[in-house]
């Protein structure tokens, strides 16, 4: 990663879930970054950061994918993803995968410095206290779910709330236990579906108790899980990624079809 410029170059790591499940999150991220004064590129060789393999114990597959990500993104000033989970993997866990490989470890160290999750990038690096999209609005009572990796691996704490509260029309209300896991856990939710369901049911109870009509979060894995449970329980709560709300692109919530 080179010296940071006034109009820095950003490699957008779309994330595999956004690519397949929710392209709007990718476009919203792109818009927010460009409006925040970045020159954004989307490397077309990107697929997945390798986290599913890493967390399943398949270090070899994970390492192969990790090298591809570093190679594809190291030429930019920054690498940004709309996910604390993927960014935690890329920024921190790759170091573990490269621990016995000094060359890759060094390349990764240099690269990791410029790696950021979207919200913390906008707030901490670009110094924004409101959305970079001037005319973004959202009408609703909004609560926010911290993703565990965003919270504990990346340190996304107040940033999302600060930016969300500044969106005209947003009536923000916090969860009673905002730091509790939603039970997604990547492959955990399919390996232990009953435990996972039980955990997400608690999360849904917390969301319902706030009286919010909208749940916003920064990680699509958690959001798929929570949205799936919210609709299964017939709650009518709308679910969006934070980037969608900040970019004024929150039109069709999870679980509805365009």
């Amino acid at each position: 990663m080179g010296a940071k410029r006034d109009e820095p170059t950003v490699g957008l790591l779309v994330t595999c879930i956004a690519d397949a499940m929710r392209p709007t999150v990718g476009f919203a991220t792109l818009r927010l970054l460009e409006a925040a004064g970045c020159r954004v590129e989307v490397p077309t060789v990107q697929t997945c950061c390798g986290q599913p393999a890493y967390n399943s114990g398949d270090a070899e597959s994970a390492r192969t994918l990790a090298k591809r990500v570093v190679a594809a993104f190291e030429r930019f000033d920054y690498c940004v993803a709309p996910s604390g989970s993927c960014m935690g993997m890329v920024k921190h866990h790759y170091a573990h995968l490269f621990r016995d490989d000094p060359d890759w470890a060094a390349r990764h160290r240099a690269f990791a410095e410029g790696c950021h999750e979207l919200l913390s990038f906008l707030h901490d690096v670009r110094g924004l206290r409101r959305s970079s999209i001037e005319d973004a609005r959202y009408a609703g009572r909004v609560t926010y779910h911290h993703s565990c990796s965003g919270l504990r691996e990346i340190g996304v704490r107040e940033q999302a709330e600060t930016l969300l509260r500044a969106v005209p029309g947003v009536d923000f209300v916090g969860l009673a236990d905002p730091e509790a896991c939603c039970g997604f856990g990547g492959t955990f939710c399919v390996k232990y579906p009953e435990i996972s369901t039980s955990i997400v049911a608690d999360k849904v109870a917390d969301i319902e108790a706030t009286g919010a009509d909208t749940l916003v979060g920064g990680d699509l894995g958690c959001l798929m899980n929570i949205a799936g449970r919210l609709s299964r329980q017939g709650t009518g709560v709308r679910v969006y990624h934070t980037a969608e709300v900040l970019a004024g692109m929150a039109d069709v919530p999870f679980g509805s079809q365009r």
Partner: protein
Amino acid sequence: MTVTYTSQHFKREAKAALVQPNLQRALDRTTTLLQARRADAYRTYPAFETNRDAASAIKDHVLRHLDHYLETFERNATDAGCVVHWARDAQEACRIVVDLCRGADAKTVTRVKSMLGEEIGLPEALDGAGFDRVETDLAEHINQLAGDRPSHIVIPALHKTREEVSDLFERHHPQHRHIDDIGELVESARLTLREKYFAADVGISGANFLLADSGAVCTVTNEGNAELTMQLPKVQIVTAGIEKLVPSLDHAGVLLRLLARSALGMELTQYTTFLTGARRPGDRDGPEEMHIVLVDAGRTELLADELRPILKCIRCAACINHCPVYGQIGGHAYGGIYQGPMGSVLTPAMASLAQAKDLPHACTLNGRCDEVCPVKIPLTDLMRTLRERTWREGLVDSQSRLAMRLWGRVAAAPALYRMATRWAVRTLRTAARGRGRIGNMPLAGAWTKGRDLPAPEGGTFMDRYRRGER
């Protein structure tokens, strides 16, 4: 004696636990409360983080120089009038304790809750040798009456509701009275246990810390049962894992400040006791003999392993109290002595990875355990290390293995990956039949049983971006 592990049944037992109403009620009552208490203790103790750094450094230091501190402790404890025994494994430890009890001509043996004792199967060994074993910790007393194993390392009867304890005491306590009030239940246990303290020939305890520079044994309890167990009988036996060493009282102080706060949100427990040696001439009380059994039981092996940081554990249970998985299933499903995150790391080492292979995978990797651990054990990293081992050692089922490998290959070939993603998106969209979500789908049953699968929005980002969409 060895403990029978049942961790191979984790999946089955965890599922069963989810639908046990009493267990669920007990878990709801306690875990939220313990989290709130720890949070309060954290807020009101500004030095918490600095002390965590210090505590972690102390534990790392001791593990690096364990040989030195063990020898120093042995010398000082012996000088103070203790007899120090060394046990390589659980069997040897139990044999030493049973022989000491026989040597004391014991009939009644009182015990203070000690996880190491549970780990080496000491209760079973004492029962097998025919002693009248009396568990004096209130929760262990409940477990002994119920024939249950501890379900939590600090609150061993956490799985029992007050109502269940009422029934148990009515059946087993000499008064045979139905009691609802918690205070009265405690009193009933106190009366029942009190006479046993005086009848005991041998008292057995564990240790929270062993102080190298003085040879002292430190125990931490809330009920005062440790003091009665260790002071009244003529023979006292302490069993402790070799990782319990700290250099001095000052170092124990750092850890003590964190232990009760992390465990129960208390500044200190009701009793913190330091015992140095047996009764000396002129002492008014204390045991005539004090034996300390230092137990390895796999710890030296762990010292040379990537899992080494788990030896820093001070058994506070903060990781357990904050684990969302434990919060849903309780402790028995883990099938061993230790539960939650620390148990999922330790049990594979104590039993075997093959037997406990599910435990490190039964974790959402949310990292709250890492955040609350007073000695900064990187529990989720250790969990990932164990997952890697299950993969390497062929303990991951062949279907998952094949799927992951295949996915890995495809993800490393972008063109192929794009095709696969396009196909997956189309398939899911078809399955959603225009409703935006999938309620039930073959091969995705694990997901759709308890929640819907939101349908993909349509098209992939990469395709739409390439076509010029912004």
